[in-house]
């Protein structure tokens, strides 16, 4: 990313999907480029006014390249903070690519790097880091829940819990400073007691937040269902059953060779990636170590893990262990197939005589709904900070019991602050003093 810092040229990229034929594709240009630079290539007349959609021909000399709708956003009132042009062109990828090539050459543009538009918005302070994270969440997540968390961030809403934490942290710093600087005015014991109380409330807030910070938040952003098991254990059959379609072509997902195949299923509006780990075998099959490693990783990052096996296995690391028969074709009664289910959901469902497909799908969506019940914090950076904070505040809790040196305690609180700063913004010494004077009767 740092490479972008010294680049202030104009960039171009297609903003809509460019892999399929669609009615319209949007090409976006951002940078110092002025509207006049585009005029020679347009049939419309000057001036190009900001925030007005203009229907015009795109011209290469006198030849019409395409008929487009052009919208000009004048910087800084644009997404990136620079001049932005959005060209809605006809969506054939060949057409789109031809136009991009043409404009790149004629207007001396550069192809945008991945994320560069957002990056410029960040650099020009059009979006905060929190908002960028929100945007990323909206663009990449598979569920309503994640999208609304992303939208909250994008709209600039600071998580109300963070505001509370900031207040509690400020209060903690203040009480520490009161102990150090103003005990004489307030009385030693009174000062110490308010410090202890303030740390208690800070700690409680962190603990509450920690409960909402799953260890691996990525798992909830794009939840994956992984079917795991030896060859011929019935994975592909289950895969097809859940997708409710027969895969005629088994297409490998891009980036991997034939390690796994995947498709998307939607359960109650939440998109899951269903992965059939086709190529994964156990170690005695002597496949490459890298492959095993890969499958393990896949399993680690999975939201819902299903093991298919012909043996009687009990394995708590799976959400569902399905004992399959050799003729795992048409489904018999549920209990014939499912030998072990982890967690309370499964047990409930087992009692009802649900049909098999529904049972599996409900297990998955129920687990998902439970996981998002307490509105988990899934932005990885926030999540990581919260987990770290939790550890530090626990250590601090132990330190308070043995260490009476307030310089040390305050230094430790300062270290927490350095971390918190990434979540809640800077807490300045003046903020602390303001808080002291607002809350305590200080001074001689």
């Amino acid at each position, binding site marked *: 990313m740092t490479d972008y810092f010294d680049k202030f040229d104009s960039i171009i990229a297609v903003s809509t999907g460019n892999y399929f034929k669609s009615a319209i594709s949007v090409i976006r240009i951002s940078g110092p480029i002025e509207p006049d630079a585009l005029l020679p290539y347009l049939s419309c007349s000057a001036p190009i006014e900001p925030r007005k959609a203009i229907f015009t021909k795109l011209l290469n000399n006198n030849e019409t390249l395409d008929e487009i709708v052009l919208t000009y956003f004048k910087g800084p009132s644009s997404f990136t903070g620079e001049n932005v042009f959005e060209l809605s062109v006809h969506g054939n990828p060949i057409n789109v690519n031809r136009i991009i090539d043409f404009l790149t050459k004629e207007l001396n543009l550069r192809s945008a790097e991945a994320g560069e538009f957002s990056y410029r918005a960040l650099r020009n*302070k059009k979006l905060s880091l929190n908002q960028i994270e929100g945007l990323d969440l909206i663009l990449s997540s598979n569920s309503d829940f994640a999208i609304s968390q992303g939208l909250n961030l994008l709209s600039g809403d600071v998580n109300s819990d963070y505001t509370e934490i900031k207040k509690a942290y400020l209060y903690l710093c203040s009480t520490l400073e009161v102990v150090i600087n103003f005990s004489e005015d307030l009385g030693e014991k009174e000062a110490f007691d308010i410090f202890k109380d303030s740390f208690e409330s800070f700690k409680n807030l962190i603990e509450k937040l920690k409960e909402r910070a799953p260890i691996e938040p990525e798992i909830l952003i794009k939840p994956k269902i992984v079917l795991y098991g030896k060859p011929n254990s019935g994975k592909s059959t289950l895969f097809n059953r859940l997708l409710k379609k027969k895969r005629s072509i088994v297409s490998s997902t891009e980036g991997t060779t034939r390690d796994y195949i995947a498709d998307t299923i939607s359960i109650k509006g939440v998109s899951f990636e269903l992965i059939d780990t086709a190529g994964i075998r156990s170690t005695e099959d002597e496949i490459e170590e890298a492959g095993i490693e890969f499958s393990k990783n896949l399993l680690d990052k999975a939201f819902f893990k299903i093991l298919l096996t012909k043996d009687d296995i009990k394995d708590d690391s799976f959400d569902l262990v399905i004992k399959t028969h050799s003729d795992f074709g048409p489904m018999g009664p549920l209990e014939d197939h499912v030998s072990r289910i982890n967690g309370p959901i499964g047990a409930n469902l087992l009692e009802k005589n649900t049909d098999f497909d529904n049972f599996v799908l409900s297990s998955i969506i129920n687990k998902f709904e439970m996981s998002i019940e307490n509105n988990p914090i899934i932005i990885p950076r926030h999540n990581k900070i919260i987990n770290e904070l939790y550890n530090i505040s626990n250590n601090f809790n132990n330190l308070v019991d043995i260490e009476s040196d307030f310089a040390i305690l305050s230094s430790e609180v300062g270290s927490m602050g350095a971390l918190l700063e990434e979540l809640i913004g800077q807490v300045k010494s003046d903020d602390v003093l303001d808080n002291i004077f607002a809350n305590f009767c200080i*001074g001689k």
Partner: protein
Amino acid sequence: MNMYDIIVIGGGHAGVEACHIASKFKLKVALITLESVPIGSAPCNPSIGGIGKGQVAREIDCMGGLMGKLADSAGIQYRILNESKGYAVQSTRVQIDKDLYAINAEESIKLIPNIDIIKEKVISIDKVNDFKVITEKNEYISKKLILTVGTFLNGKLHMGKETFEGGRIDSENSEGLEDIFSNIKIRNIRFKTGTPPRILKRSIDFSKLIEQKSDPKAINFHLLNDNQRKIDQLSCYLTHTNQKTIDIISENKELSPMYNGQIEGTGARYCPSIEDKVFRYPEKSNHHIFVEPEGLNTDLYYPSGISSSLPKKIQDEFIKTINGLENSEISKYGYAVEYDVIDTTYLNSGLEHSEIPGLHFAGQVNGTSGYEEAAGQGLIAGIYASMVLSGQDPIKLSREDSYIGVMIQDLITNTRDEPYRLFTSRSENRLSIREDNCHLRMKKYRDLLNINDEFDEYLNILEDEFLCLSKFCDETSVSLDNISKYNDELAKVFKKLEKKIFISDILKVPTVDPVDFLNYITNQCKISFNFRSIRTAAISKKYEGYIKKHDVYTRKIQKVDRMNIDLNKMLNSSNISFECKQRIKKSRPETFKDLKNINGIRQATLAVVASGVY
């Protein structure tokens, strides 16, 4: 001819330090001050030091200043504040005999041959090439001018409905700065400070008060002094306000200049008048009052905690409700003073005004409060002006290793809407900026002053001893037997670890007093060091790990903060708004942190500067 290298106007704590340090550069110096105001007088609380301020007093002492010596020469009660809360936040405070302090201050300045004391009132100042200072009687010329005029600029006193022109109760004021010096901008905000009534000793019932004796363990301020007190010691006393006190003040709210609109100036929230306390914290009735002697031979006691500008009658009334003060006679009534302050963002790291080269401001006129803060600024202004005149690069104290550095940087990067006082929380490095290591922190700066007297020789010895002791702590192991002789419980803890134990390991144990243990060990080993070296070495070891840890957490932020930035490049940048440039031009930030601290600087400006694309 009345020609000087440096003229200092104002003989308070800032002025005294400024002319005193300038004299060490063999410059010809004049101190011009009002006849009616004693040199080095303490018009408010009778004490030097305190939390954060004790550190400053010692820093001044190590830099060749007078404050430490004067405080010891007049010290009548020493206290170690925060004694139980860790060495890094400990500070020394001494109650002073005010008269003696002022007498010694004037004597010290008088004895210096290259300082002339001129007791005249300044009427106006001109600048052509040099400064021309015109008093009622004479004209004086100087290359550098240091203004340390305290609360005297347009000073106005308030006591109930009565108001007087003046900087203090018993002296006249100065004209407004605009009248004296036509092309200087003052801030359009006035500051206010106040002082409590003084009570006669014979009218106080000490048997009802809680006595606080002088602490013999407290270490004298001047580094070359041993730990004997110079004069007799007195006690201070503690008492409290009560509901009756509060009621009287509440009933007379309308008579308080602070609350009826008569005073417009902004007071410091950390130094509230008793009226402030009552109206802002109505639920609290027992406010602390420290009853402090103003000297050995004076009959005056200073009741710290009840500064007031209420009418005399009300002061009489409420003070008599206080335990032990029922029969008290007030000899001087409390009052508030309002005064002009200058905009310190125009000043550089030597407190020199950017628009009038050679003109420095120091002390309360810069909107600070406290004798120590004033003295620290006077010292810096004096050093800067002197070094420039002597053709040397002036030194700049960093906020990383001194409280004076913290204060100067805070002052010149921002204006405040209340008087500035040093709190230890203003420093980012509280664990390393301590009283005990003050001499080591300041040595590198002092060396650059080339004073080269016995103080410097002593500093060299202390530095060598410290390095030697640090090594000794890291490399010397202690036997379990030896530890158990010191503390059996401690030995048990270490026994479990089954590894070689070094002195440093023990100094870091939370329950161990590091100074006490290192004293024990050096005695055991029959090696002798200066008590200061043992303290500093032991305390430094205790904090070593925490300082490193803190550094790791803050390194990322500080790395950017410490980044030097190019002023001209910013002012010519097309990526920085006009408004931001105005602010930058005024404050002239040198590091990214300075820039960040400027009020109203835009995030976008910070972003382009941080990324280096301005």
